[in-house]
């Protein structure tokens, strides 16, 4: 074992031995008789132990509430012996009057449990007048007191107190009352901290409480002047009848203390924080009387005016009008339902828009509530709306009062509105809301209902429609081809016959040579025309010498032959239309030339 370790062990053993010998645990109260408005301090002191002191476990305290804790430690080494004391301070607030016992408190020190002696305290009404030790700013265990000096100046308890002020202490259920917590002081307060603000039972606390102003006013109590500061102001609405208790309101504040010499401003010092509390107060809440209450009583307590108005006095049937019913006055309107709307037959109405305003002030509650209806007249004429009534309870007179508004007159132009635009006002138009999906409804039987008929695609008509084009086009093809063939046939026939026909014409012409008739030339020309026409499968009637020349050129007849043909035709023309006799020789010569032509044309036109 090394020297350093052995030294540490020795110290530990020494400390343990010391704690085992001289540990003392004590509990004390700074007063054994306090007022319910006062606070008291419970001190648990552990002396003789330097280490291993754990926080005491406070038992349940009847009639007292722990508002705060603090600790202090002092340590000294005398003659090589270490002595220490550790204090746990509990700020206690009495909750009710009576005598209460603070049971033994267990404190664990160095693994062993020590118990304090039980204590008793008596709580009386009000505040105990003789200033408590604490109020003088020093307690026996004040860490500064051994040095003989009090840091905080003294505050006279008579100079500082708290009060609660009620606007009324006899109210009807539902009638608002104003609660104000006041600080009365002859010093200037330095800030305020709420220590204990128990929840209120049996009251509705209006949230919109206006802030209290921080500047105090001067008030005289028992011939002494005080600054009075309103710390907290609330508007309460009793929700049940009977005697309701307003619990104490606890707060702490420090004060600025001067010597009183107006020139000695620099000597001003801050006092220790003081805990102050108000007295509990009883409030008598009377139930609303039965007498005079109608079945449609609105529940409003206070004093109210009812008003109804329309945004227009003239309107077309089917157009929307806004009807506003408003209620305003002193008192709470939170739970008030819309005044009974008189019969609105002949109007379509929609759910009202509700506006609710409440203002809480030092005088109590002022409320305004309005219901805005969109109504649509369905037919023309002069309509009367209302009157509206609302019964409320007036606590001042202790009686029920009925407020009324209307009736209003509305002139509606036009006649009945068609059903078509039912269901939607201009203001309340909305999408079709699907409530539930379902299958579609049954169908009507068709006109022609019966047994199954053969579908069209199986009917002969369908097949006929498919096959008909095929057949008629086949027929058409056959017809066209036959016609074509017939046409070709006749051409060949003509072509073949052409020579023979031409020669028979020439023969006939030869018979005319004897008579010397000019018809000879006509026959000769006709024979030639006819021949070329037959050979070319064209009609002879439209042919002229020039068109014959073109036709023959197309078919490849040489120029010599064409010239000869043209000459022959020209000669016969000339002979036909010029006066004078033609000799037989002349005619025969022409006939020979034509015959020769026919022979030589036969080959290229073949």
């Amino acid at each position, binding site marked *: 074992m090394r020297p350093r370790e052995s030294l540490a062990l020795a110290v530990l053993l020494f400390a343990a031995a010391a704690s085992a010998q001289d540990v003392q645990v004590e509990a004390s109260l700074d007063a054994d008789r306090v007022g319910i408005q006062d606070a008291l301090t419970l001190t648990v002191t552990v002396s003789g132990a330097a280490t291993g002191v754990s926080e005491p476990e406070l038992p349940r305290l009847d009639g007292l509430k722990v508002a705060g804790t603090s600790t202090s430690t002092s340590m000294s080494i005398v003659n090589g012996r270490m002595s220490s004391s550790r204090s746990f301070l509990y700020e206690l607030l009495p909750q009710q009057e009576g005598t209460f016992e603070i049971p033994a408190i267990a404190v664990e020190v160095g693994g062993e449990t020590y118990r304090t002696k039980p204590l008793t305290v008596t709580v009386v009404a009000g505040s105990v007048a003789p200033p408590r030790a604490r109020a003088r700013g020093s307690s026996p265990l004040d860490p500064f007191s051994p040095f003989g000096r009090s840091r905080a100046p003294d505050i006279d308890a008579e100079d500082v107190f708290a009060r609660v002020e009620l606007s009324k202490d006899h109210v009807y259920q539902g009638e608002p009352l104003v609660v104000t917590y006041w600080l009365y002081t002859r010093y200037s307060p330095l800030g305020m901290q709420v220590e204990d603000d128990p929840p209120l039972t049996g009251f509705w606390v209006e949230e919109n409480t206006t802030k209290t102003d921080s500047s105090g006013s001067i008030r005289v109590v028992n011939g002494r002047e005080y600054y009075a500061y309103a710390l907290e102001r609330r508007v309460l609405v009793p929700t049940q009848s009977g005697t309701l208790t307003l619990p104490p309101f606890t707060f702490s504040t420090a004060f600025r203390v001067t010597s009183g010499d107006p020139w000695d401003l620099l000597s001003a010092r801050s006092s220790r924080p003081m805990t102050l509390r108000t007295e509990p107060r009883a409030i008598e809440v009377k139930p609303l009387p039965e007498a005079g209450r109608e079945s449609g009583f609105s529940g409003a307590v206070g004093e109210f005016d009812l008003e109804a108005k329309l945004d227009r006095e003239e309107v077309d049937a089917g157009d929307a009008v806004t009807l506003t019913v408003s209620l305003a006055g002193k008192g709470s309107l939170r739970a008030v339902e819309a005044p009974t709307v008189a019969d609105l037959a002949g109007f379509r109405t929609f759910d009202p828009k509700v506006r609710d305003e409440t203002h809480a002030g030092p005088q109590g509650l002022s409320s305004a509530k309005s219901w805005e209806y969109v109504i649509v007249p369905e037919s023309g004429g002069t309509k009367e709306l209302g009157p509206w009534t609302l019964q409320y309870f007036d606590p001042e007179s202790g009686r029920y009062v009925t407020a009324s508004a209307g009736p209003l007159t509305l002139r509606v132009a036009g006649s009945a509105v068609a059903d078509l635009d039912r269901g939607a006002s201009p203001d309340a138009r909305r999408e079709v809301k699907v409530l539930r999906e379902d299958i579609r409804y049954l169908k009507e039987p068709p006109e022609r209902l019966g047994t199954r008929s053969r*579908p069209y695609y199986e009917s002969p008509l*369908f097949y006929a429609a498919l096959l*008909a*084009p095929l057949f008629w*086009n086949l027929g058409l093809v056959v017809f066209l081809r036959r016609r074509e063939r017939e046409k070709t046939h006749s051409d060949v026939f003509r072509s073949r016959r052409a020579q023979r026909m031409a020669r028979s014409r020439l023969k006939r012409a030869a018979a005319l040579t004897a008579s010397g008739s000019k018809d000879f030339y006509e026959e000769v020309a006709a024979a030639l025309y006819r021949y070329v026409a037959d050979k070319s499968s064209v009609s002879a009637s439209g042919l002229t010498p020039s068109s014959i020349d073109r036709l023959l050129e197309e078919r490849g007849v040489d120029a010599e032959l064409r010239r000869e043909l043209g000459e022959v035709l020209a000669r016969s023309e000339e002979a036909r239309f010029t006066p004078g006799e033609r000799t037989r020789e002349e005619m025969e010569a022409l006939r020979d030339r034509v015959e020769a032509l026919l022979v030589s044309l036969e080959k290229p036109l073949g």
Partner: protein
Amino acid sequence: MRLFALALLLQAAYDNPREAFRKAESLYRDQRYAEAAEAYETMRAQGIEDGVLDYNLGNAYFKAGELGRAILNYERALKRMPGDEDVRANLDFANELLADEDDSPPLPAVIGWAVDLYDRLSPSLLAVVLSVVFLLGGVLVSLLLTEHGAGLRTAFLYTLAVLAVVALGSGAALAAKIVSARGRVEAIVLEDNAYVRSGPGNASPRLAEIHEGLKVRVVGEREGWLQVSLSNGLTGWLPADAIERI
């Protein structure tokens, strides 16, 4: 004698299908759905075949809580009147309630559109289109045979090409519809739940569990068992009485 006459009169009234429709509808309106379904079934048994009858019967079954039969009859109605919005809406509504999810892969938009068009066209309409196209085409061919002007011939040829495409499409669709109607390959599961087995007979292992209202395709048949294929591609056997062909 008078009683007999009355009976005859009643019989005549019942024989009048419109009267029977009215009766069934009043049962339906009174929420006596099972009785309404029975009334419609009686009409069908009497030989009335109509899409409206199928539709109303489907509605009655739907309200009576028989989802499978409702879907079966909606499908039948759709076969008879493929373009009818009411039938389609109710079939879709009923299909929403199916226990089995439709896990067939989604189709590309163009094909989906074509399938939708195919579903909505009735065979009769297709047949009418086909006949009109054929007649028009025939007229055009005739004109082509007789007309010699080059410009007109080109116009006729293009028109003919378009008509040929329409004819091919509608002809193929019609053929497909006729074949599927003849084959009656689609069927609806009517039992609450049925097991698809790997072979005909209860000894075969179960492949899948399917529920009322599911549409399956019948691909084979053997001794009271039907071979079916599901939309997810699974093929197996079901007892013939578990399903009914559309």
